[in-house]
């Protein structure tokens, strides 16, 4: 039996029945990473010794009869979530050698659940990108076609899950960075409600939009990961006090009578790939056959979401990234003869071009004379986008539609054209602006054999409904069981 082909749920059963140990499971993944990751290039750092120590601890817990859904389960972590003693680079030269002195709250929670951390995975530098090409270190390949991008910014997480280089992963989503790579790599990805998961120890990109979430091979696995990482955290004053529901226990409920909204404006979007439109259309038919009621809804300000986002996110980013000054941690440029000179040379040599572009944009939007025209205006439009969702959710329980307008594109296709790259996020970005949860679940393939994801969006804290519908859809269709051929 090849243990790396299991889901978290199957591995959990095997560990519980003592068919294999966490050490055996972890070794299988370390060997597969050794054999295969030179092709995929998902991992920036692998920690075999630490992983095996954690696996041994998990095996002891299991022997004592203490086993939860993540006990002994090998995972990967996007390299912008702080891991004490393990390098956390944000795929940036400016943090290339940064070793955090503390753990993010989600990492503490994974440790508490006796999960196993295999290593840290690639991303667009500081999560700014939709292709993982903006990593300062390496380009991650899509396991379904090695000449295509895996999506981004959590491209390392999605590729590692799709290539069976881990059983699940934690990523982050600021404008689609979990859902879009999940869609492009044919895995399940969930961006929780803003505040559902603590951001303490998540390196900040845009603080009012960022959210940590899981990527995994199935909906059950995704629910298991969310169950462990969700909840209020006194260390994050923006984390929500709402109690955490039983995500797993809710999965098998029937979806008969649930009202599913189809967004009129999404259908009118130019540049939609016909294979994506066909797969999403077929998914809607499947959900109808399962008893869901389809409702036509409108999000009138859809056409302004990307514009609003590309003011707000860079504005927040330029403030957050002001801390990288070469003083307390991270890269410092040599040869500066004054403090000001050191700031400038450090930041110019340490940040990649996309990050510099967004810092410049954000600084411009916040600068004297432009604040009202850009930042304030974009924040007002954000209110309109939020109100659109509130209005839509009066008429339906959730929305379904595409995740991205096209399947994964070839490496290098949009690298010189930032605006075209930004338009990739057109269906995902509004969820971050409104703070609502969103999910991608595999719903088909393009003619070229690239995976396509179905997006589910719901009101604040509606993760149980999203997971329930995704689970029913997954059971009915089984797309998640189709694997990339990588030999």
């Amino acid at each position, binding site marked *: 039996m090849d243990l790396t082909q299991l889901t978290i749920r199957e591995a959990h059963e095997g560990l519980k029945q003592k068919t294999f140990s966490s050490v055996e499971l972890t070794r299988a993944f370390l060997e597969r990473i050794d054999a295969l990751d030179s092709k995929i290039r998902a991992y920036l750092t692998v920690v075999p010794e630490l992983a095996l120590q954690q696996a041994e601890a998990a095996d002891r817990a299991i022997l004592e009869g203490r086993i939860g859904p993540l006990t002994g389960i090998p995972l990967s972590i996007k390299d912008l979530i702080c891991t004490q003693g393990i390098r956390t680079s944000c795929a940036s030269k400016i943090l290339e050698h940064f070793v955090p002195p503390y753990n993010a709250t989600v990492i503490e929670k994974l440790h508490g659940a006796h999960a196993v951390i295999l290593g840290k995975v690639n991303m667009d530098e500081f999560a700014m990108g939709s292709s993982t090409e903006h990593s300062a270190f390496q380009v991650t390949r899509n396991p379904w076609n090695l000449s295509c991008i895996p999506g981004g910014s959590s491209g390392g997480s999605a590729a590692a899950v799709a290539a069976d280089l881990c059983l699940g992963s934690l990523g982050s989503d600021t404008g689609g960075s979990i859902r879009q790579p999940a869609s492009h790599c044919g895995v399940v990805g969930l961006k929780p409600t803003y*505040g559902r998961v603590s951001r303490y120890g998540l390196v900040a990109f845009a603080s009012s939009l960022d959210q940590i979430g899981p990527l995994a091979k199935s909906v059950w696995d995704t629910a298991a990961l969310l169950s462990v990482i969700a909840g209020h955290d006194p260390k994050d004053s923006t984390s929500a006090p709402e109690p955490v529901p039983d995500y797993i226990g809710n999965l098998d409920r029937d979806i008969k009578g649930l009202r599913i909204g189809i967004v009129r404006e999404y259908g009118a979007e130019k540049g939609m790939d016909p294979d994506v439109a066909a797969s999403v259309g077929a998914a809607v038919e499947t959900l109808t056959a399962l008893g869901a009621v389809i409702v036509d809804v409108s999000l009138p300000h859809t056409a302004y979401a990307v514009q609003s986002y590309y003011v707000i996110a860079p504005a927040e980013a330029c403030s957050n990234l*002001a801390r990288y000054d070469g003083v307390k941690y991270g890269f410092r440029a040599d040869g500066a003869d004054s*403090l000001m000179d050191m700031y*400038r040379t450090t930041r110019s040599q340490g940040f990649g071009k996309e990050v510099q572009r967004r810092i410049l944009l954000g*600084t411009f939007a916040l600068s004297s004379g432009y604040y009202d025209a850009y930042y304030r205006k974009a*924040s007002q*439009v954000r209110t309109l986008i939020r109100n659109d969702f509130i209005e839509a959710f009066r008429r339906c329980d959730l929305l379904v539609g595409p995740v991205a307008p096209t399947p994964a594109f070839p490496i290098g296709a949009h690298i010189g054209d930032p605006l075209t790259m930004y338009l990739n996020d057109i269906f995902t970005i509004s969820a971050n602006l409104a703070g609502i949860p969103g999910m991608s679940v595999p719903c088909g393939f393009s003619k070229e054999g690239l995976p396509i994801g179905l997006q589910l969006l719901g009101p604040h804290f509606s993760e149980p409904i999203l997971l329930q519908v995704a689970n029913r859809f997954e059971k009915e269709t089984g797309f998640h069981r189709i694997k990339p051929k990588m030999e």
Partner: protein
Amino acid sequence: MSLTSETVLHVAQLARLELGDGDISTFARQMADILDYVDQLNRLDTTGIEPTFHVLPITNVFRDDTPASHLEREQALANAPDRDEGCFLVPIVVG
């Protein structure tokens, strides 16, 4: 809109970035493209609309002022690019 090199250089100065000559023209062009696109927001009348800066109804969060664990000096300095006598070291500030 078009963005002059002077504007890009001014913004770069505010952001503490040092741009090469080639970068200035590329950034000016790319930023102008993006800002042209962003300017579509002006098609919407937002008079009287409150801006959204934060999506959840959470305001000032307080906690008791009780001592808790903190980083030891050595941990805090462990990632420092340069240090001396338990302090972060930077280039000379006042000549």
